[in-house]
């Protein structure tokens, strides 16, 4: 019995040291290829000029914090969800509300527009993801047609119609292979919780926004962080990030009510946008890249261009 316990302890110890060795080797391998940062490679790229981006539309109607939003493929409609339990579909050009659904729970933390434009998905503290087909028939009760598509053991924090293969998990960003269900790469350079991750348009990299007040860019093929977007004057967490169409600009919404626009290649901030009167909780660039929308705890959404 005593010899068995001894054997188990030895196995544990040897496994622990193997794990430590591998971690060290991983760091070494990554460091070997790290001889230069992205902004150094991009030194000769022309700097961006002054940006004039303004709020073009303000969408008012939610009774509480806006938690999530998504664009429809038609580049015009927006779905948003709020702590007031409502999910609203807006026409961003006219600011008209086209549909409104009241969820049985408050804190609708996630919503998404179907690629077909014919349905929306949402969920939150009800632990479910529900899909609502959109109908313009005033006699039809949208809530009656809802379908539950997933039951989770805890609240739904994000949902998307296209397979989202990334997950911000505490300070770690993990990349998953959807076919094998395995984590193939993990990045842990943020100093605090990651709130948002978004793929670079080419798919070869992704950006993350974190409570440590920085946004970072990770290249998947170099398997490394290649840029940090931060300023000493920015001390509040970044809640949501998204790229412009070409990937040159990174828009990030912060808990200090502002949106910072970063030059992805040079690592510098090109613009700071004011307007929201509370935390920016969600941010998405439109499908054709002509505008972006931000949602905030100030109950409104703003469309910028």
């Amino acid at each position, binding site marked *: 019995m005593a010899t068995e*316990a001894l054997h*188990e*302890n030895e*196995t*544990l110890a040897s*496994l*622990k040291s*193997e*794990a430590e060795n*591998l*971690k060290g*080797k*991983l760091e070494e*391998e*990554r460091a070997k*290829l*790290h*001889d*230069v*940062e*992205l902004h150094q*490679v*991009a030194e000769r*790229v022309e700097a*961006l000029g002054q940006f004039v981006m303004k709020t*073009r*539309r303000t969408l008012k109607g939610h009774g509480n914090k806006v938690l999530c939003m998504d664009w429809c493929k038609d580049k015009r409609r927006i779905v948003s969800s709020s702590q007031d339990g409502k999910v609203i579909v807006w026409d*961003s*050009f006219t600011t008209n509300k086209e549909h409104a659904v009241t969820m049985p729970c408050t804190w609708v933390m996630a919503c998404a527009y179907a690629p077909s434009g014919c349905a929306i998905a949402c969920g939150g503290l009800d632990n479910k993801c529900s899909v609502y087909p959109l109908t313009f028939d005033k006699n039809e009760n949208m809530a009656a047609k809802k379908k539950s598509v997933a039951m989770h053991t805890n609240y739904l924090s994000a949902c998307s119609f296209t397979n989202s293969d990334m997950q911000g998990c505490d300070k770690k960003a993990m990349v998953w292979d959807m076919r094998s269900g*395995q*984590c*193939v*790469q*993990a990045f842990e350079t943020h100093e605090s919780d990651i709130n948002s991750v978004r793929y*670079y*348009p*080419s798919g*070869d*990299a992704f950006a993350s926004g974190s409570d440590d007040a920085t946004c970072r860019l990770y*290249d998947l*093929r*170099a*398997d*490394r962080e*290649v840029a940090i977007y931060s300023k000493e004057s920015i001390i509040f967490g970044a809640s949501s990030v998204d790229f*412009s*169409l*070409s*990937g*040159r*600009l990174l828009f990030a919404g912060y808990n200090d009510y502002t949106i910072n626009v970063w030059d*992805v*290649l040079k690592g510098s901030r090109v613009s700071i946008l004011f307007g929201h009167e509370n935390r920016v909780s969600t941010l998405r660039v439109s499908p*054709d*890249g*002509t*505008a*972006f929308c931000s949602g905030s705890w100030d109950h409104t959404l703003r*469309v910028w*261009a």
Partner: protein
Amino acid sequence: MSSRASASTLQCLVEQLKLEAGVERIKIPQAAAELQQYCMQNACKDALLVGVPAGSNPLQEPRSCALL
């Protein structure tokens, strides 16, 4: 009992780390150059970057109010 559980957890961690260590990597200058190239190639299509001709973005048009 608990040592067996932590042994299997560690075993999984070791396997996962081996997988991550075996990932093929390219050098940063090459990766960075490719990111930059993508930006440059698509810059002209990026409305938020280069702007659009006046009048072609419905959001930028001043909205008319009809006085009824």
